[in-house]
């Protein structure tokens, strides 16, 4: 039944729709738009044909890879939607318990999140398709992931037009002018955020942007504060976090994520769920995650050992659950296109990001958060890291081979033991 239906859909596409988009058809210019839709509906009947070449291919492809990242984004996305509502109701003193008003909170979150996501997908998708049509290349899958990623690293109060501008900027100048998916130098989603961060700092930082208030701005509870744990800790370190009166900013609060922040970044637990999927499927490289984790821990412990101020004395493990560290570690740093490509390079790249993120976060008074900038710095350093790794590989091999030449002349060979091949 299902088979019949899909077969007739395929036949309909091939006989009734496709001719309009191929050469000589009415919409021949829009061929790649048609192709994008067709390949989304059906895995195409393409077969191996290269000579020389393999006749059988692995079932994996880029669409499948990308959709698994999207799956991994679902936990932080769902949690982020709920948390927008939770922070909203907390601010006006309703449903202050965690389990209260679940549906209302979720609906408020949806009201905020969906428009952001839709604007991003519409703007980014349109630009992708436009470039595909003009440059005559297939629409690639990259934006499937980039879109939700941009949405999840925005503050909930971001104006939609800014989202649109940032997305357009990032997709055009971060990716398409380099040639599209696979060719970009820096992470497209982070570029969108960095663009807003420097162009409209008032909407991307401070105490006012992390909690969606909507039309309830005049009904705030006494003692309301929109400061994120990062901002509080930057002011007064561990003591300030403990004595923060508006809501509890303990380690576990930040681990579970009912704190203000960018939409998807707050819950370390939800991010860990996504990380579990990415690591289980092997879609993201564990070396980068491990490297960045070690780098972050290393820098934080170093600060703990030589605490010049309150912030530096903040217990090291707090840094792992605050701000965007976990989100950046799992979803941003691991982007295979913009990260280092050698195994050794991935460790160095991850470690570097972890250290730099903490340095910017703790030592730079201007920016309370350093993960975004650290990853962008990592992105632009990645080719250099790879270059050095490859250079050392080349040196090592040249030496090795020179040494081996001497060995050729050793003639003796020992008799075979019966069991050695059993």
């Amino acid at each position, binding site marked *: 039944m*299902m088979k019949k239906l*899909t077969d007739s*859909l*395929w036949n309909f596409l091939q006989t009734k729709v496709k001719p309009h988009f191929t050469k000589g058809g009415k919409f021949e210019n829009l061929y790649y738009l048609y192709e994008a839709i067709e*390949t989304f*509906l*059906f*895995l195409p*009947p*393409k*077969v*191996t044909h290269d*000579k*020389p*070449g*393999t*006749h*059988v*291919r*692995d*079932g*994996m*492809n*880029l*669409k*499948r*890879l990308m*959709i*698994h990242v999207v799956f991994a984004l679902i936990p932080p996305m769902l949690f982020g939607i709920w948390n927008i509502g939770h922070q909203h109701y907390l601010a006006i003193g309703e449903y202050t318990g965690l389990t209260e008003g679940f549906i209302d909170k979720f609906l408020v979150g949806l009201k905020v999140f969906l428009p952001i996501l839709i604007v991003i997908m519409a703007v980014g998708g349109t630009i992708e398709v436009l470039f595909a049509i003009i440059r005559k290349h*297939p629409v*690639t899958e*990259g934006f499937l992931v980039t879109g939700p990623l941009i949405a999840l690293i925005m503050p909930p109060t971001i104006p939609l037009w800014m989202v649109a501008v940032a997305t357009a900027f990032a997709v055009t100048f971060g990716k398409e002018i380099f040639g*599209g*998916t*696979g060719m970009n130098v820096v992470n497209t989603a982070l570029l969108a955020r960095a663009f807003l961060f420097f162009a409209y700092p008032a909407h991307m930082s401070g105490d006012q942007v992390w909690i969606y208030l909507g039309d309830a701005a005049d009904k705030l509870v006494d003692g309301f504060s929109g400061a994120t744990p990062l901002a509080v800790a930057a002011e007064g370190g561990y003591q300030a976090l403990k004595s923060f009166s508006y809501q509890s900013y303990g380690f576990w609060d930040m681990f579970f994520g009912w704190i203000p922040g960018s939409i998807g970044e707050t819950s370390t637990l939800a991010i860990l769920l996504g990380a579990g999927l990415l690591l289980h*499927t*092997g*879609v993201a*490289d564990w070396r980068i995650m491990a490297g960045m984790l070690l780098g972050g821990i290393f820098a934080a412990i170093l600060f703990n050992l030589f605490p010049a101020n309150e912030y530096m004395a903040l217990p090291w493990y707090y840094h792992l659950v605050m701000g965007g560290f976990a989100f950046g570690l799992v979803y941003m740093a691991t982007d*295979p296109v913009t990260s280092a*490509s050698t*195994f050794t390079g991935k460790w160095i790249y991850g470690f570097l990001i972890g250290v730099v993120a903490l340095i910017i976060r703790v030592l730079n008074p201007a920016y309370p958060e350093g993960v975004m900038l650290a990853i962008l710095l990592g992105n632009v350093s990645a080719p250099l890291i*790879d270059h050095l790794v*490859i250079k050392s*590989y*080349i040196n090592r*091999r040249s030496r090795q*081979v020179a040494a081996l*030449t001497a060995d*050729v002349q050793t*003639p003796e*060979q*020992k*008799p*075979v*033991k019966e*069991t*050695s*091949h*059993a």
Partner: protein
Amino acid sequence: MAYPVIKLKRGYDLLIEGEAEEKIIPLPENPTTVAIKPTDFLGIRPIPKLFKKEGQIKAGEPLFYDKDYGEELTWTAPASGEIVEIRRGPKRRIEEIVILLDKEQDYYEYKVSLDSTESVRSALLSSGLWALMVRRPYGLVPRPDEKPDAIFMSMFDTHPLAPRLEFLIKGYEEDFLAGWEALKKLADGLPIFLGYSADRPHEDIFLSLDGDNVRKYFFSGPHPSGNVGVHIHHLFPTYKGARKVWTIKPQYLVWWGRLFRKGIVDLTTKIALTAHEVKNPAFYETFAGVNVKALLKGQLKSDHVRVISGNVLTGTKIDPEKGHVSIKDNMVTVIPEGDFPEFHGWIITHYPKPSISRTFLSGVLYHLGIPVKYKVNTKLHGELRPFVVTGEYEQVTPMDLYPQHLLKAIIVKDLDLMEQLGIHEVIEEDLALCEFVCTSKTPVQKILREGIELFRHEVG
């Protein structure tokens, strides 16, 4: 005392249903033609010089030579009969020289002796059996005037569905041993490296090969642990072209042996018909280079299939009606074509697909070490994309190499970088698995060959 065992972890065993049973079955139809394909021998020009363009020819009678290699090295007719067709490809390139088989084989006679290196060398050069060797780097036919630094022979084949090499020489043991003597003479004191499998048992005929300059090593691990290129990489690297190595497959020594025992070129061999589209996967004993129709009649489960001379990773597609098995291949693989659409096939798995990706159950099972045999097809399972995933090629390449960086160096035609990243160490078969696993569906083997040819012509 045990021989050294080299343990390789990286790689992938693609298990396919329809392994050939180790028995000889009669041919469903008498073979009518055999063909020799100049394209099987890399390094020679697309249009070799023919000694004869038509008429009768005896098995082993000189058929063509290459202008660059010189007349000393000839290719000979694989069987006796009448030259009936010279099939040409683009730019008049000769793709197949087809010989209509005689009922009774008539052999061209050679006066050969195993006495000296020089006599073995000239016998092989004139009889057409020289070109069965492959020279690394670049994977070419060895030049008559060059001397290698070592000779390598892999005693096992880990390609999907590949036959056990001991079975291929079964019944031809004396020929094989005579061929082995010839190889030792040819080596003239140079080291001969034999690579054995540490995972599967070998028979005495292989294990007992011996000599002063023979060195034996054992390899364990998944495919490509049986590839001679992997052995060379670990034992005698040709990095930056520091050395020349000749390689040969054990089954070809049978033909060498016949030449030295009987003075004739008799390319009778065993050919396995394999994979799940074949009704009765087993071995045939017939001419190398036989017309494939003689093997397939009544054996196919469906019409819409791809017939491959060789294995699914490195073989060549041949026409089931008019095609011929390559002389160098001892197997034919038949798998269904995959030219059907799959509804949301990139996310829904309609049938089990082999994969190293743990997004598939098959990948999870593989990483758990549970062997599962698959029915495969020729589907690309996606579309060509730029490189996105990194570290994927390394997972299936048990060599100290950066395959993806090498490919990128080839694509941008950076000759220095190609050399430094080891273009001298690999030929198509060594990176075939990279092509299999590639998420972006990159034509790895094609790019590599283009790179090797470019490098060879620019650098020499």
